[in-house]
């Protein structure tokens, strides 16, 4: 009953507010009048009676306010009231509102954009049931680890593991050529065991997915991704049951995955075939038996209630038992293999957000770092708006004083001021979301190297919305609370008296602190930006050992057009011959690994020099590549000694190799390496060191083999059939070259697709993508931070000058010189900047530890970068202080003295 009456009165209060207000007014008025009547009756004159009745009653508005509060209508009521009032106040000062909202929108937008990318790359869970049960298998080795297993391991683990409800394995087939109704197109294909979809818990959108028994030799079914189905087959459901050609082999489409299905971040697959379809696509008789190979990814799903540690213990036992058994089967195992078997342990990694992803590996740390940068940016925005609010609060002192004099409680006024802040924050949040929407797409383009953008979905989802809302709310409270508390610390009497002057207020200490904080945070951002810019510059300045300009590269894979290994070399030779005679081409070559390759690299071990077998410890691990004659002149790597490959080499029985300086120095120190033999092959040349894998590497031993050497009769196309090859063309004029190349390749065989068409310069720039991203975004934020710091300083100084007009007038009247006056103002700005910088330097040094792994050619506390940043800030401060100082200089002493 009592609860009910409460609700009723509350509902009445909310629903019939205006009537309640009227009634309340009438009731209180009746009281005062009745009281006055009584006084009149007792002989007091009417006018006097009314006055006394009012005084005795006390504050009419306050009584009403407390009645409202007592009625429980107050909260919603006053919220609506506050919102209305807040909107009105914000409308009244559009300049402030626009600046505050924009500042916040930039801060919130930057945070949201980077968060949405972080969310897409690192945080988002796989779109499958109970993703937290998923684990990916890895194993440790001697000081390293690996996520690629051999097939016997997968078989054994699947057979014996009891803690998991399912274990699947698979591998990327990488690029395949899909022919449908006569037209070819490239696609990304994976091969997985037939329990892949069922363990993940994915249901088909059309048709069916893999079923038990699908994974057998000669498997010829394929599942399409939703994306590929839409882009290639126009979402035609009739495709299910039809046959398509993958690398010229027939496969039947059995079903389509649901939208968004993926198990890697940033690596969307188009097709899935059963694992044993590899026997048709890339035959390798040893694949299913060979121990100690690494080619197969394994993942699984924990049974409910089983912890990762429990499962890991069980799986590790199986893993180690099999390793020991495999070791027994190897004839004469080496020392390292024994060491590996005794050291290796199986380790599970949570895979709720997907399997290992190169994209995540590359960008997790930079994104986390940028998230930090963006948070600092947001903090600066908040401080800036707080400063604006403080300034506004001092302008509003008379208004606030009046409201408090009329009986508003202090908390009530604070709440009202906070509502205003939250309105600003809310508007900033909405605008920020729009900025993030656009910025997220820009960021994705920034980290995309390939022929199409990285498939990342950065459209805001619920986590992103939640994040933005939380950030806006936190921001609103952060910048609103302090000014609100301070703004309401007024003595109504004195504030009202001073009101006419508008700009008088309590000490500006807090404002100064805020501006100094802004300077501190700006220094962090500017220094960070400086470090990343230097890193990028350093990387770009590295001599990679290639001449980057005027080289066009493109890749071709004979397998995609259905060529068997044996015929691949001939195809590449024909294409090379055609390309070399294109107009404007100086020289042309073909190689397995292209300069600064981002796809893969090859390693080998040299165990024999001049017929002498090296002891295990002295064996040389080399990176290697195979290429046609003309490669070195084309990419601009000088041949220091000996000669280039020659097509005549192909007839040599034993083979010839070229080494780089590092390798020559390593295996034959102090000797002329020409004529010596490595693993039986004769060294015919020595080339200058180039950085095989890009600018971040140190020079390392590299062995170069002749791509066409095998055709003399030794082992035709041994390296040629491994995958795609890359052609390099040195050109004089690049105009229209890409089209000419396409035509030339098509004239050889219309079914041979070319891909990864890129200049060497672009390829090199792409290898700095991460650094580029860091430098660009931190540079952008650094600039923004400087701008805001400049605005903050300017605002503070302009205010200070206005406040000190009289003082300046007196000084000038007493004969102070103009330079002295300017110095007076600029000095104050200087102090603020120096105080801010003094706090900022240690903070930056402390924070820069996190960036260390991402820097190149520069320490995390580089004095030059710090000096530049501080100098920049001082420059900005002088700029910000100068305008107000100039205004102070123009003060007319007579006017100034009359001012107050």
């Amino acid at each position: 009953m009592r609860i009910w009456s409460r609700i009723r009165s509350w509902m009445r209060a909310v629903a019939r507010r205006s009537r309640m207000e009227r009634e309340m007014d009438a009731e209180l008025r009746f009281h005062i009048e009745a009281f006055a009547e009584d006084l009149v009756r007792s002989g007091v004159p009417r006018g006097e009676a009314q006055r006394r009745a009012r005084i005795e009653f006390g504050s009419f508005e306050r009584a009403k306010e407390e009645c409202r509060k007592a009625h429980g209508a107050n909260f919603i009521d006053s919220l609506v009231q506050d919102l209305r009032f807040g909107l009105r106040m914000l409308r009244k000062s559009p300049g402030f509102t626009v600046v505050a909202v924009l500042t916040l929108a930039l801060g919130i937008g930057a945070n949201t954009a980077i968060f949405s990318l972080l969310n897409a790359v690192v945080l988002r869970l796989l779109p499958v049931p109970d993703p937290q049960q998923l684990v990916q298998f890895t194993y440790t080795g001697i000081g390293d680890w690996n996520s690629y297993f051999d097939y016997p391991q997968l078989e054994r683990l699947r057979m014996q593991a009891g803690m998991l409800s399912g274990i699947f394995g698979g591998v990327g087939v990488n690029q395949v050529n899909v022919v449908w109704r006569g037209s070819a197109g490239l696609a990304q294909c994976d091969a997985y065991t037939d329990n892949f979809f069922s363990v993940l818990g994915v249901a088909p959108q059309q048709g069916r997915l893999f079923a038990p028994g699908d994974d057998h030799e000669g498997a010829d079914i394929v599942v399409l991704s939703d994306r590929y189905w839409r882009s290639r087959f126009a979402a035609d459901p009739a495709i299910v049951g039809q046959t398509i050609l993958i690398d010229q082999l027939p496969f039947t489409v059995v079903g389509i995955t649901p939208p968004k299905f993926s198990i890697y971040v940033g690596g969307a697959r188009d097709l899935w075939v059963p694992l044993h379809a590899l026997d048709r696509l890339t035959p390798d008789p040893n694949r299913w038996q060979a121990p100690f190979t690494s080619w197969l990814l394994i993942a699984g799903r924990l049974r409910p209630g089983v912890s990762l540690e429990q499962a890991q213990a069980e799986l590790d036992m199986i893993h180690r038992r099999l390793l020991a058994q495999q070791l027994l089967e190897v004839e004469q195992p080496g020392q390292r293999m024994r060491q590996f078997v005794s050291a290796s342990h199986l380790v599970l990694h949570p895979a709720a957000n997907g399997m290992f992803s190169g994209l995540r590996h590359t960008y997790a740390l930079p994104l986390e770092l940028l998230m930090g940068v963006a948070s600092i940016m947001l903090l600066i925005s908040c401080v800036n708006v707080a400063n604006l609010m403080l300034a506004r609060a001092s302008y509003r002192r008379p208004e606030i004083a009046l409201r408090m004099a009329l009986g508003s409680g202090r908390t009530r006024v604070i709440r009202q001021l906070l509502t205003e802040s939250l309105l600003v924050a809310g508007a900033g949040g909405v605008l920020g979301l729009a900025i993030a929407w656009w910025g997220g797409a820009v960021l994705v383009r920034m980290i995309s190297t390939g022929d199409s953008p990285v498939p990342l979905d950065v459209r805001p989802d619920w986590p992103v919305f939640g994040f933005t809302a939380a950030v806006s709310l936190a921001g609103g409270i952060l910048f609103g609370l302090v000014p609100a508390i301070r703004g309401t610390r007024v003595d109504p009497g004195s504030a009202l008296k001073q009101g006419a002057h508008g700009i008088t207020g309590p000490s500006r200490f807090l404002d100064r602190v805020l501006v100094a904080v802004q300077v501190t945070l700006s220094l962090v951002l500017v220094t960070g930006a400086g470090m990343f810019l230097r890193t990028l510059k350093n990387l770009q300045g590295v001599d990679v050992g290639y001449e980057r300009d005027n080289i066009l590269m493109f890749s071709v894979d004979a397998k995609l057009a259905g060529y068997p290994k044996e015929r691949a070399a001939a195809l590449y030779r024909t294409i090379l011959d055609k390309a070399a005679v294109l107009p404007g081409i100086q020289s042309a070559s073909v190689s397995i690994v292209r300069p600064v390759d981002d796809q893969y690299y090859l390693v080998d071990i040299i165990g024999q020099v001049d017929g002498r077998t090296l002891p295990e410890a002295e064996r040389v691990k080399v990176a290697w590549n195979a290429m046609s004659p003309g490669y070195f002149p084309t990419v601009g790597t000088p041949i220091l000694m000996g000669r280039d490959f020659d097509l005549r080499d192909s007839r040599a029985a034993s083979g010839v190799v070229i080494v780089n300086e590092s390798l020559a120095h390593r295996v034959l120190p102090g000797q002329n390496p020409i004529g010596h033999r490595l693993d039986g092959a004769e060294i015919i040349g020595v080339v200058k060191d180039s950085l095989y894998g890009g600018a971040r590497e140190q020079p390392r031993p590299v062995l170069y083999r002749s791509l066409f050497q095998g055709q003399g009769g030794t082992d035709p196309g041994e390296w040629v059939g491994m995958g795609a090859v890359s052609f390099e063309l040195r050109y004089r004029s690049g105009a229209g070259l890409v089209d000419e190349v396409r035509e030339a390749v098509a004239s050889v065989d219309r079914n041979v697709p070319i891909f990864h068409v890129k200049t060497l310069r672009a390829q090199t720039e792409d290898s700095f993508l991460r650094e580029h991203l860091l430098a660009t975004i931190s540079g952008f934020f650094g600039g923004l931070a400087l701008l805001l710091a400049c605005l903050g300083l300017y605002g503070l100084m302009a205010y200070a000058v206005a406040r000190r007009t009289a003082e300046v007038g007196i000084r000038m009247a007493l004969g102070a010189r103009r330079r002295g006056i300017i110095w007076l103002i600029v000095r104050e700005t200087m102090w603020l900047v120096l105080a801010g910088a003094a706090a900022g330097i240690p903070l930056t040094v402390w924070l820069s530890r996190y960036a260390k792994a991402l820097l190149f050619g520069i320490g995390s506390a580089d004095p030059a970068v710090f000096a530049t940043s501080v100098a920049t800030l001082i420059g900005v401060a002088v700029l910000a202080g100068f305008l107000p100082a100039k205004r102070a200089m123009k003060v007319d002493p007579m006017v100034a003295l009359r001012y107050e």
Partner: protein
Amino acid sequence: MDKQLDLLQGTLDMLILKAVSLGPLHGYGILLRIQQISKDRLEIQQGSLYPALYRLEHQGWITSEWGESENKRKAKYYRLAAGKRKLQTEAEKWNRMADVIAGILQSTPEEV
């Protein structure tokens, strides 16, 4: 200072309940009634009377309706609703408290 206000507030609630328990009254009437019963020994802040009335109504102890005053004017009249029991318990609490306080104040050195 706060404690005193709390005490006064509770007391005011009780006095209002007592006043309206004797018959429906408008706000000003309640003020007069309390002054009358207390023989003018109790001063009530006029402004604080109404919030107390609104609170008691919100809590359901009293109800209100508009009626006509003695001099033919519209006024809001309050009457006791569920407040009878509340008044009783409040009064008992108050008496107990008063007894305790009186006992303490009357105690002599010998008793301690």
